[in-house]
């Protein structure tokens, strides 16, 4: 992000580009700008930006524009705003933002109002502090006039303006109406050492509502006369409804209607249990669909493809001559499976489409796309669409997609009443956009002294951005551009990434981006095109590529007789922050020190979402089971806005990643997903959760990603410990394939 985020940018962020204007300022009104439309704003309110509203009765309302899905934006972003505003973040009344171009994500890869890519703090750090500073200065100017004092004698502290010489105080609310008439001043932001709320491990602001049951997720949305729908979706990829028999279902209690929608057959009732029972009584004839899709077939396709030349991504030196002169060369095939996100809250959305108005409630990660989906399905303009954000019961990338929203809209249009679509766990497991499977081929060479002299690698996988990007691109294009043009642009971009010479960066991130200083390198990518829906999954390409590279690294270190930590440290000499987290992880984990009998350590590192992370896992092998006892993680994410939330996210990513590394996979048989619920796609449970120790490196650098970077190193750290224990490399996830059938009678 540009360091020159200026007043114009703030205005842009405040005013919005989509026709909705949120700023109430005397100066703006005088300039003839449209009146504010921030929901609930009243005359006398001070609305200095799209994020903040201060009312005359001293309510300080913070509009959170990055969704809260557990990662802690509600708290961290409140801290960012509060720091310059000089107020306890616990004093904020927090509202969840609707959809508005004012809230476009400034991350160039996202570009529209959405939460993902570990971008929230990174992209809000400057604008939110600036918004706080602007508001504070306007309040201070209003106070100076009220006190008939010099500006220098007025100080903002704890939600009040203090007249220092007299000790008189005015609450922000008392100054709201006056502050609204001040012009936007130039502001200077505090240096990091002067931060008041940034850097504090304050209690999560959503903790209270999440322990007393009052937190409202999408599935909890309640509106009068709400109907509930379930959808019978294709049992196999690409299968279409031929016909359906709903006679028995229609006779069942509470059933309102049964009809076809583009996604399948919708069953609408007054209650969820009525809809599910009726759905079980609907007989649907489906076309065969993509019956050939089968995990064994796919695996063979990928393994065959990865052996052939593909699109060059990065190259330097000459791997061929380096390999010829090397002491040892090793070749390896690595594999990673499809994965579901399996958010604890199944997919759901609520919609009303009546009288040329549309309202949507959704636990979405991408309000911009939710609103765009509403426009596309209903044909209504944005001005007729009200979007209401809810909390998310987990996201992990799944909720950037709008399939559940589209279903709700189609059904709402037909029944002309409020309706909530609720997915079962089985629906959620079987109709997702999965983390792509991937196969990697790598060849590395080591010289007589154990140095890695050459590394070439080719990865075969579907493209996440190529499959999903077109929809995003279409939504980014300004609203004035005709839709056919937008669609054309989207298709072109999708086509380019799908095997026409441009490589989706998420296909190779974590591999071709490796920081090791190796003289001869070559990375290629082979894009796979076949009908399995894929999407972003926590840490995206890093989630499998770092496993491939960091385990292969240990194989090469072993071949050259080098300690894997020492060799990493040597090859990271030109990446000082990355080397520093590696060294601290090794130190805190006691690398090289004796362990109890039967325990082994593995180390891995990665840089993702601009954040440096290293992890050491302590493992024992018990029969065929892998037991992870302890994980030490070190993270350098720049300024730590809330260190305890950062620790929580690293713990979270490690546990999420361990479940995937050890046993989770989505497999296909005759075009259908074989897994259905948490017994056969089982996340990590408490008793198998290791002791986790997270160290956050103090830093004054700009903050970087937090939600995802803890994940990539965990699988290779454990795999490397298994290599240390057994002498045999682990080249495929999940590690305990075939051992996943745990006791199902919990």
């Amino acid at each position, binding site marked *: 992000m540009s360091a020159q985020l200026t007043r114009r940018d703030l205005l842009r962020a405040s005013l919005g580009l989509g026709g909705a204007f949120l700023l109430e300022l005397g100066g703006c009104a005088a300039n003839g700008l449209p009146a504010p439309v921030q929901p609930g704003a009243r005359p006398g309110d001070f609305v200095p930006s799209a994020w903040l509203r201060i009312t005359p009765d001293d309510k300080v309302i913070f509009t959170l524009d990055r969704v809260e899905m557990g990662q802690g934006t509600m708290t961290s972003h409140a801290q960012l705003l509060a720091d310059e505003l000089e107020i306890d973040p616990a004093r904020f009344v927090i509202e969840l933002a609707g959809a508005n171009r004012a809230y476009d994500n400034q991350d160039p890869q996202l570009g529209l109002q959405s939460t993902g890519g570990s971008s929230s703090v990174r992209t809000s750090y400057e604008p939110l502090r600036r918004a706080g500073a602007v508001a504070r200065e306007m309040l201070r100017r209003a106070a100076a006039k009220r006190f008939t004092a010099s500006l220098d004698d007025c100080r903002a502290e704890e939600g009040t303006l203090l007249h220092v010489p007299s000790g008189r105080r005015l609450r922000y609310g008392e100054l709201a109406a006056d502050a609204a008439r001040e012009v936007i001043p130039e502001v200077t932001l505090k240096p990091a050492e002067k931060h008041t709320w940034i850097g504090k491990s304050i209690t999560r602001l959503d903790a209270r509502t999440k322990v007393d049951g009052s937190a409202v997720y999408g599935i909890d949305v309640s509106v009068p006369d709400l109907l509930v729908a379930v959808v019978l979706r294709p049992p196999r990829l690409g299968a279409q409804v031929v016909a359906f028999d709903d006679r028995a279902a229609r006779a069942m209690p509470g059933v309102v209607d049964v009809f076809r929608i583009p996604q399948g057959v919708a069953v609408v009732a007054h209650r969820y249990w009525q809809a599910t029972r009726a759905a079980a009584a609907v007989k649907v004839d489906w076309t065969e669909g993509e019956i050939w899709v089968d995990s064994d077939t796919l695996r063979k396709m990928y393994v065959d493809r990865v052996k052939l030349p593909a699109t060059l991504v990065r190259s330097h030196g000459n791997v061929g001559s380096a390999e010829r002169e090397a002491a040892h060369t090793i070749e390896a095939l690595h594999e990673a499976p499809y994965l579901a996100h399996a958010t604890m809250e199944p997919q759901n959305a609520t919609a009303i489409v009546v009288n040329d108005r549309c309202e949507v409630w959704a636990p979405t990660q991408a309000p911009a796309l939710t609103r765009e989906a509403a426009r596309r399905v209903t044909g209504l303009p944005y001005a007729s669409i009200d979007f209401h954000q809810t909390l998310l019961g987990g996201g992990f990338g799944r909720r950037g997609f709008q399939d559940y929203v589209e279903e709700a809209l189609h059904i709402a249009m037909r029944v002309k009443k409020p309706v909530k679509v609720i997915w*079962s766990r089985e629906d959620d497991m079987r109709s997702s956009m999965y983390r792509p499977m991937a196969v990697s081929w790598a060849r590395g060479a080591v010289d007589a002294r154990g140095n890695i002299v050459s590394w070439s690698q080719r990865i075969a996988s579907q493209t996440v951005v190529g499959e999903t990007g077109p929809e995003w691109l279409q939504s980014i294009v300004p609203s004035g551009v005709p839709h056919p043009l937008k669609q054309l642009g989207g298709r072109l971009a999708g086509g380019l990434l799908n095997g026409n010479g441009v490589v989706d960066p998420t296909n190779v991130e974590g591999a071709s981006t490796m920081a090791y200083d190796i003289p001869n390198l070559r990375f290629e990518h082979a894009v796979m095109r076949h009908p399995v829906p894929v999407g972003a999954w926590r840490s995206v390409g890093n989630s499998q590529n770092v496993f491939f590279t960091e385990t292969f690294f240990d194989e090469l270190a072993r071949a050259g007789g080098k300690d894997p930590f020492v060799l990493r440290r040597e090859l990271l000499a030109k990446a000082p922050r990355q080397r520093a987290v590696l060294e601290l992880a090794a130190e805190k984990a006691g690398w090289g020190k004796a362990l109890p009998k039967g325990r082994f350590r593995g180390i891995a590192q990665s840089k993702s979402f601009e954040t440096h992370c290293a992890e050491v896992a302590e493992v024992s092998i018990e029969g065929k089971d892998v037991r992870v006892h302890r994980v030490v993680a070190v993270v350098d994410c720049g300024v730590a806005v809330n260190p305890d939330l950062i620790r929580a996210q690293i713990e979270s990513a490690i546990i999420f990643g361990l479940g995937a590394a050890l046993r989770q996979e989505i497999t296909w048989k005759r075009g259908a997903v074989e897994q259905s619920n948490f017994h056969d796609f089982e996340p990590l449970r408490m008793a198998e959760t290791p002791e986790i120790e997270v160290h956050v490196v103090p830093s004054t650098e700009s903050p970087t990603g937090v939600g995802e970077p803890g994940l990539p190193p965990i699988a290779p750290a454990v795999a490397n410990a298994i290599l240390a224990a057994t002498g045999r490399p682990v080249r495929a996830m999940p590690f305990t394939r075939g051992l996943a059938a745990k006791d199902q009678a919990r």
Partner: protein
Amino acid sequence: MITFVVNGVSRSVEVPEDVPLLWVLREELGLTGTKFGCGAALCGACTVHLDGSPVRSCVTRVGEAGGKQVLTIEGLGAATLHEVQKAWIAENVPQCGYCQPGQILSAVALLKAKRRPTPEDIDAVLDANLCRCGTYPRIRRAIGRVVGALAPDEGGEQHEKKEETHR
């Protein structure tokens, strides 16, 4: 008509006996703090207490609750927050929060059954509640915090100090 007591209040519902208690709580009584996660007693998000014992409300027929006492998350801290809820806040346990009502009600049941659970007891009982955000280390700490705050003679068992945190 099925009548039972929910969070201290007698409620009657007009639904078939075999409807899951979960959906009666959520849809008939508007108590949405009890969550739907799997529908098959695999995740524990729907945990409530039935006559003081934890049950998975997604597979508990409402008929089984007839004449009994049901405690949901809304009832647990209705007057003042329960000690477990307070410990949860102190340890910053929730992330997305969706599974937490079930986690908390499982923890309350554990502490009722055994006032001073060992770390192994905690793992054994809470193992049945899934959390996709991975709040397990903090759940351990929060329960440890409740136990650590007990008076020395409370609970009637030996009171060796539990290891504080894994931080």
